[in-house]
């Protein structure tokens, strides 16, 4: 069983897995007990598993542990000790959740967008989230929440 060092949510951790091809998603969920990234498809198609690596939104379900280079941030680590990330606050304000299973991906993907583009248009938000699937139909609220967080 190989020891792999990782930086997750600002903490240096070591994980022990017997297969370096284990997708990051399972390492985060099963080895580190994080609940933010979620299994949705295992194919990189739905976005439920989205995390940040060095600020870039990636699909952790198709990212082998051996390929992870950089600092990993999950929904748990998005806010600061002082408080929630503006997107988290905005999702509460807009009540932008139905079941909430996809919401991890919605927030993580949008957070990456706001880092690159602090004042996105509605079209930019919708395009950014084109590969994040929601089955409950919460899209309109999610878009409103991202706009609220961006102050647009």
């Amino acid at each position: 069983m190989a020891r792999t060092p990782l930086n997750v949510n600002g903490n240096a951790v070591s994980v022990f897995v017997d297969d370096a091809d284990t997708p990051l998603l399972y390492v985060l969920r099963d080895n580190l007990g994080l609940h933010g990234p979620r299994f949705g498809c295992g194919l990189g198609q739905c976005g439920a598993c989205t995390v940040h690596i060095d600020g870039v939104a990636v699909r952790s379900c198709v990212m082998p542990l051996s390929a992870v280079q950089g600092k990993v941030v999950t929904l748990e680590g998005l806010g600061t000790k002082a408080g929630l990330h503006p997107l988290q606050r905005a999702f509460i304000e807009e009540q932008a959740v139905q079941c909430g299973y996809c919401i991890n991906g919605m927030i993580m993907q949008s957070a990456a967008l706001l880092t690159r583009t602090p004042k996105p248009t509605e079209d930019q938000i919708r395009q950014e989230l084109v590969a994040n699937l929601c089955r409950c139909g919460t899209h309109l609220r999610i878009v409103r929440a991202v706009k609220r967080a961006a102050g647009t």
Partner: protein
Amino acid sequence: MNVSVSRRSVLKASGLLVVAFSLVPRLTIANPGGATKPVTPDLVDSYLAIGRDGRITVYSGKVDLGTGLRTALTQIVAEELDVPLDQVTLIQGDTLLTPDQGPSFGSLSIQNGGAQLRQAAATARRALLERAAVKFNTDASTLSIRDGVIVDPNRRELALGDLLDGRMLSLELDQNAPLKSPADFKLVGKPVRRLDIPDKVTARFTFMQDFKRPGMLHGRVIRPSGLGATLLSYDESSIRGIPGIVKVVRIENFLGVVAKSEWSAIKAARTLSVKWSAWSGLPEQSQLWEHVRSTKILKDDVTSNRGDSQAALAAAPRKLAATYDFAIHTHGSIGPSCAVAEFEGGKLTCWSASQATHNLRKQLAAMLGVADESVRCIYVDGAGCYGRNGHEDAAGDAVLLARAVGQPVRVQWMRADEHGWDPKGPPTLLDLRAGLDAGGKISAWESELFIPNGIAGFVALVGADHAGLNSLGQLSPGGVINDLAIPYAIPNVKTTAHRLESTPFKPAWIRSPGRMQNSFANECFLDEIAAAIGADPLELRLQYLHDARGEELLERLATLSSWRQRPKPDRSGEIVTGLGLAYVKYELVRTYVGIVAEVQVDTKSGVVSAKRFYVAHDCGQIINPDGLRNQIEGNVVQTVSRVLKEEVKFDRSMVTSLDWGSYPILTFPEVPEVVMDLIDRPNEVPWGGGEPTAAVVPSAIANAVFDATGVRLRSVPFTPSKVKSALGRA
């Protein structure tokens, strides 16, 4: 269960509450899991417990499937008992603790489940005031409850927790216990924020998929290559190199692997060398509707019959006929089904996101050949659930694997399991005919629906079927004949459901089952009649609706959408737009919805885009208007997806649309705007809002496409190829 029965008999025999108290341990919030808590639907204690600290625990058989039900039910109970919202905790769908209030389906969780909780709370409230009156030596009518504290005119106070001191209420639920006046509502009818959202946006929420047990192993099931294929052989040596394999489990055609780590279980399930028999019993997809039409009819259900439609149709100088079909759909939860099963002391506990834990308990008990009492099913919130999807099946898988290895097992379905093996919304075919008299009045209406036989009964568990075990399964498509009958006062009407012996895939109910497909045909066909006689679709409906509430709704819809001021469609361009209207009175007895769809059709590519929906909605009393808006938005968006994009694809052996690439759903850039007018009637009973809007979306889109193009779309989904083909024929 036995305990509560004997307790009830003692109650009845003695008439003395104190006798009951001496027989059962005291229930406190700190110990809500006592086996003596009653769960029979006729006792207040089945639904409510009041702790010494004044906290109210609500035991709900109805569960929050992502709809906000938890919050709404909490509002209802807190309102009726006059306690603060944050003093109420809701326990859902635990067969040991919660009454069986029926599955959380059919837009009934507020309408039925909420009503029961409200009545239980009202019964408790009256009893609490009466008991306090004895203590205060005063009349109960002088007392009131404020923030969980009983107060009298002399400002004496008694907290609910102190009054009850941890005891049960020991009351029969009284259907006549007086309800609080809506004029006094502080919580119900208000857009109270959902209680679960803060935890869901900060990853503190425990979904079923996050749930763990000590010593838990991970299981995956290897499904047959064809629906009816049998397991010929498998080679365990093929997974020898994968670490942490605990066991390969075979029970007839059920084949699973259990491993210490989730990734090992996944790899093993993918790698295991397996030989299945060839099976190709499915019809050709291109021949699906011929297959449906030629399937043996077991019986006819005539859902409405007035006048003599046959004679009226024969006599009609002008006749219309059209056939509508609606594709097979998958549920497509974003989180595939998941369950954990654990045996201890010969008893099974199974955690799942089932919408019907009480039914699942019976199915698992049957599968294991044990008494229901040996099985406890506990609900844990999963990803959005829109009907009987794969949760129960994943539970069955977990139980079979846990039994085989003697340790707790978690089964997480993979995406292909979910798309391939969840029960499907069955293919639906409808023939409609109408007769018009010389004056252009509709004299006759006939419809024939081709739909699998059965009701919303037990749907067989996939794993049990493969293992050759009985899980009580029957053909159970749901209440699919609802809304075949029409809300319009046409003199001669006959609506007939031909109940089919079989359907290609194991069916079950998906949001607005049958009501959606039947309303699609009905409301499209009425639009065809309107066009044929040159009537406005709104005015025609108003003409035939003899229902004041429905008429008011349609007038509000007309105002909301500026229907009567809409421009005449310009069909000349390459990209054209149109408006379509539809209406439903859900199951003809409850929620009213009127909808106008605005669509854009690219006549070159055949792409239909839904731009905007106007929804007028009357579900009686609204518990939480923002929760209702959220549900209506969801109904519209999800149904637009189903209507424009979704269709299960299959070959002769198996589903082939096993991922989101082959079964695409609506994406953000395609999502329409939704404008709503909610009609609140605080003095009426609350009806459901989780489904009815979905029922009118397909027909509104089809009618809008006609408005834009002059072409009728009668086959869901409205894919570009179908649209282009229809336009070519126009």
